[in-house]
């Protein structure tokens, strides 16, 4: 009799084990009854209504860029005045404004190794250079910066020019630049340096601002040459000194 009872109990227990109240998988059931769980290592999927497609980084970047571009193009419909001004000196393609000019010649050397910039929401490099830019001897700290605000992305070069010595003409140029900043109501933080050129941007308002600065300073030979030669200087920063040395 006792053996019969034990056998019956064993059958009941085995049946309980073989029929857990939940299954593995995506949200198969609500809260599991206490004390009964699927046996073995289970994979509990994230709920299908929450799960997003898995993408590698290139795919994720492409998807975000496409969404940003679509949003910006929609926004740009309301910025026709800025666009009209921007295209005076920028080429526009698919919502990206690229500075038209690539004039000038820089021959010189880097004074140190190119260094990564740590800018929240951006990136870039800085490099001290000395050399000849067209006919001007310059000693500058150049920064090549990518930055973004919301869905916009821009690329700029910033130069902190050595004001010391007998560079009277350069001093005049920098004063003119300061006046232009005020006249154009520049919103780019001055802390980045003395001169800047946004060479690529998805924001027509920023491109229009750059056009304003160019127009306000075009009578100044140095500033005009600097702005038209921004791509040349950027190439020098971007291609020079590939590694940051960690000691």
């Amino acid at each position, binding site marked *: 009799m006792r053996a019969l009872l034990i056998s019956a109990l064993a059958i009941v227990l085995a049946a309980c084990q073989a029929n857990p109240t939940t299954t593995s998988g995506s949200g198969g059931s609500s809260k599991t009854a*206490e004390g009964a769980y699927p046996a073995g*290592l289970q994979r509990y*999927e*994230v709920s299908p209504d929450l799960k997003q497609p898995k993408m*590698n980084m290139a795919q994720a970047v492409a998807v975000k860029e496409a969404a940003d571009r679509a949003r910006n193009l929609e926004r740009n419909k309301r910025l026709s005045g800025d666009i009209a001004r921007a295209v005076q000196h920028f080429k526009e393609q698919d919502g990206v404004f690229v500075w038209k000019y690539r004039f000038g010649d820089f021959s010189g050397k880097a004074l140190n190794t190119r260094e990564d910039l740590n800018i929240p929401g951006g990136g870039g490099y800085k490099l001290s250079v000395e050399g000849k830019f067209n006919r001007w001897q310059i000693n500058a700290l150049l920064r090549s910066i990518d930055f973004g605000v919301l869905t916009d992305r821009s690329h700029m070069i910033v130069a902190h020019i050595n004001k010391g010595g007998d560079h009277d003409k350069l001093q005049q140029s920098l004063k003119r630049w300061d006046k232009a900043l005020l006249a154009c109501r520049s919103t780019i933080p001055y802390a980045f340096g003395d001169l800047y050129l946004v060479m690529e941007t998805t924001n027509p308002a920023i491109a229009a601002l750059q056009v304003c600065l160019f127009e306000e300073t075009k009578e100044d030979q140095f500033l005009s040459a600097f702005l038209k030669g921004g791509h040349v200087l950027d190439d020098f920063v971007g291609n020079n000194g590939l590694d940051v040395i960690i000691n």
Partner: protein
Amino acid sequence: MKRRDLLKMGAAGLSLASLPGWANIANPERRLVVFFLEGGLDGLSTLVPKLEGRLESFREELMPDNLLDLSSHWALHPAMRSTHQLMLQQDILGIHATSFPYTKRSHFEGQNLIQGGGLTPFSESTGWVGRALDIASNGGRAMSLDTPLLLRGATGVDNYYPAHVNGSSTPTTDLLQRLHGGLSPEWQTENEKLISRLDGRVFNSRDRSPRGLSAEAGQALSRPDGPVAAMIRLNGYDTHAGQGGKRPGRLFSLVGELDSCISTLKKNLGRAWDNTTFITLTEFGRTVKVNGSSGTEHGYGTAMLVGGGAVNGGAVLADWPGLAKSDQFEKRDLMATTDSRSICAAVLEHTFGLEHDEIAERVFFTPNLPRLTDRIFL
């Protein structure tokens, strides 16, 4: 000073291991990051088993509101928003009820064991990552003054601490304020605007906080010739008191910091995220029941996170043991049903292209260690 106080004082740290023979590895572009959570992570409040009906009855005050749902079975702590997003994007896998085979609940023994990967605490003078690197390469030379046990190998690996990381973890606008006096009046106006915009919001990624070190690790690991493995230490997980849950507490900031480290690492790895795997390790879990100080005591089973581009994420893996008193380890802790070493072995197999059997035998000295690689990676 008590040992517990000493643990609280431990600084965050980053160690990076490069590999002179890296070209010999099957997949030289792959990288490994270990987030070492010192103090014993409460897995039950971090990766919350909603499928467990008894949890609230044991620790109602420790259960946060506004959990981040993963499914009807699981949820994440509300401070882990980035982790949650990455789980939904299938880049992070949660694994629950795990532990190294250690049940004594001592920080020092536990931390030594999970770094050494041996069969008993203090039995190994090398770490499991270091031994795997030994097998994967021809060895190299030790360059660091402070190589953590985890990364130590028999022949040594190139190892360095990024000594140039010299910022503060609480950056200020001091420099702008010092410059202020030397500026002309109109520039001072602009400088004031800049200071007011930046004050309290300055983020210097090159700081020695775990988040800053995660940024540093991400940048270093992303370089083609960069180190292959990094260990980032986060401390303070020994939440005996004021752990928080319904009310704010320590765990919120602790797992929030981990969450921030994970998102910062990903951002700084850039495309190298696709080839990087991170795991979280902690010496033990914590008691199921809340203690008298609104905290938890040292326990056994806990939760792990494994993430990266190659991880088959978007799920929680668990052989859930249940929380009935009779199911708890020694009637107080979450039972561990998955050996953490199996997870570590899978990560080593994927990252360094080693055979599982070799890892089981030569790295963890456990030939019959279950293989989970196919359960964790795509």
